[in-house]
């Protein structure tokens, strides 16, 4: 049925999807964020630093509000704040998991406080009440295309560093003791990872918003680590899932303009939902397998 194909295609891709400039920008920047978060996320989940990843994203939003205030490139604001926060946590010198959790929590509280303050200044000085929404939840379809070169550079730096230090990073994430024996400087690698994390997180905080960037960082990586057997495959799968979720989310959000009158549904909602579904799809069979094993062991 040759006739039904175009109709089917327009059902999936609403008219104008491929011609729309905001969609192009969103797909490039969002895709970049998904790739970087996918690579860095695998190490972050392995190292048990999901909280740090989330906290850095939230704190970098304070930088986003500053850049609103100063009128500088928002990515620089996000990035600067994330680097300050990452160094701050590392300087607190937390060696035990619980102590690290606390230092991260305190840093997060202080950073969010700053965000509140800067947002307050934003609101009072420029009466931009939308700033809180934009900074926290991002607004993919309003990313200016001028940001693409800088965003891709930041992403490329994070990926290059991760690839160059792949072996020590992987070893230190898997087993710090083993890495120490092999001559890896575990603390240095820890700091390096936090800085790469800051790069990745500030990039995605700009695209899906400070809070939801956690979804891109943790979701695909946690999903792929449940499925893949080798680190290389885990990273590839995590990147793939991130890109599918991001582009799928953009597509659905674009389509949703026709679902409800006058306005579309938020991109962040679709991306997060897709990521969550991927995670559940990977986790559920795993749980069933485990239960089966337990039942068999019981016999």
């Amino acid at each position, binding site marked *: 049925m040759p006739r039904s194909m175009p109709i089917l295609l327009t059902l999936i891709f609403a008219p104008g999807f491929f011609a729309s400039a905001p969609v192009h920008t969103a797909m490039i920047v969002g895709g970049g964020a998904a790739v970087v978060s996918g690579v860095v996320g695998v190490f972050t989940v392995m190292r048990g630093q999901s909280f740090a990843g*989330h906290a850095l994203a939230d704190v970098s939003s304070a930088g986003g509000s500053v850049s609103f205030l100063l009128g500088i490139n928002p990515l620089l604001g996000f990035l600067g704040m994330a680097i300050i926060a990452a160094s701050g946590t590392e300087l607190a010198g937390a060696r035990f998991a619980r102590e690290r959790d606390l230092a991260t929590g305190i840093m997060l509280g*202080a950073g969010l*406080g700053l965000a509140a303050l800067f947002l307050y200044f934003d609101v009072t000085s420029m009466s931009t009440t939308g700033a809180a929404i934009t900074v926290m939840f991002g607004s993919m379809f309003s990313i200016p295309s001028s940001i693409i070169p800088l965003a891709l550079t930041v992403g490329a730096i994070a990926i290059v560093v991760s690839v160059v230090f792949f072996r020590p990073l992987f070893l230190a994430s898997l087993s710090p003791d083993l890495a120490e024996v092999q001559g890896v400087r575990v603390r240095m690698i820890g700091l390096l990872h936090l800085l790469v994390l800051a790069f990745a997180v500030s990039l995605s905080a700009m695209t899906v918003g400070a809070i939801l960037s956690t979804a891109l960082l943790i979701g695909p990586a946690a999903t792929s680590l449940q499925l893949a057997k080798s680190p290389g495959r885990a990273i590839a799968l995590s990147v793939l899932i991130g890109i599918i979720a991001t582009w799928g989310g953009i597509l659905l959000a674009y389509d949703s303009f026709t679902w409800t009158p006058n306005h579309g549904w938020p991109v962040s909602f679709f991306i997060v939902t897709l990521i969550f579904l991927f995670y559940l799809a990977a986790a559920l069979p795993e749980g069933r397998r485990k239960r089966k094993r337990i039942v068999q062991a019981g016999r």
Partner: protein
Amino acid sequence: MINAWAVATLVAVVAGIVGFFVVLRGSSFAAHALPLGTFPGAAAANLLGINPLFGLILFAVLGVAGISQLGRRSRHEVATALSLVTLLGLGTLFLSLTREYSQGVYALLFGEVLGISRAEIVPVAVTSIVASGVTLLLFRPLLLSAISPELGEARGISARRMELWFLALLAFATATALPIVGALLVFSLMVGPAAAARAMTNRPIPAMLLSVGISLLTVWVAISLSYLSNWPVGFFVGAIGAFSYAIGRIWGQFGTMRLRRDVVLS
């Protein structure tokens, strides 16, 4: 102003008590994720035209269920992160559908301490008393399970059940206070003072009392400064929290000799 003072004092007491366990269990992430993940509930309730309290409680239950159920299969913080972002994803959807959102989001995240009516105090007072009461009733099993889950299991205290209790208390304590003090303030109040108290002493009861004391002091100073400067309360609470933690760490370093003699209760 008096109303703000009363509500903030109530929230500070609960935060000090529950925060003691947050710090002891090392679950700052849950303490951050539960209030934050609960706030879309208010938007959902707004959309359906029901009392925001029901929405908040529903989302708090979803949050607790998400963290504890997903936590069975994977790392705890991965479960927390995924539950949080999924709830927030729903939140963005509800917010975009209700339209009157900017101001609401700001208030839910950062609080509106200085605009509280007398009627709003009652639900906060009730939940504060219930949450503090239950925490104190479960003090020993919660403490044992937090310090050594294995020892707790040996005494017949299920670590999983204690975790569920802890998460439920955390969610319950924050849900009602959320529209007034904001997700950010609740979190800062839970972690900062308790962390400072923990750094100063290892004995559980003094640590908890100290945590409540610092929490009260933080709130009172923050509200006064906010009243004077007109800056948001959340900023002062976060800053004072970080400051008191730093002081606590320094105090703890000086007192290492003394602390070494103290015996952890377990």
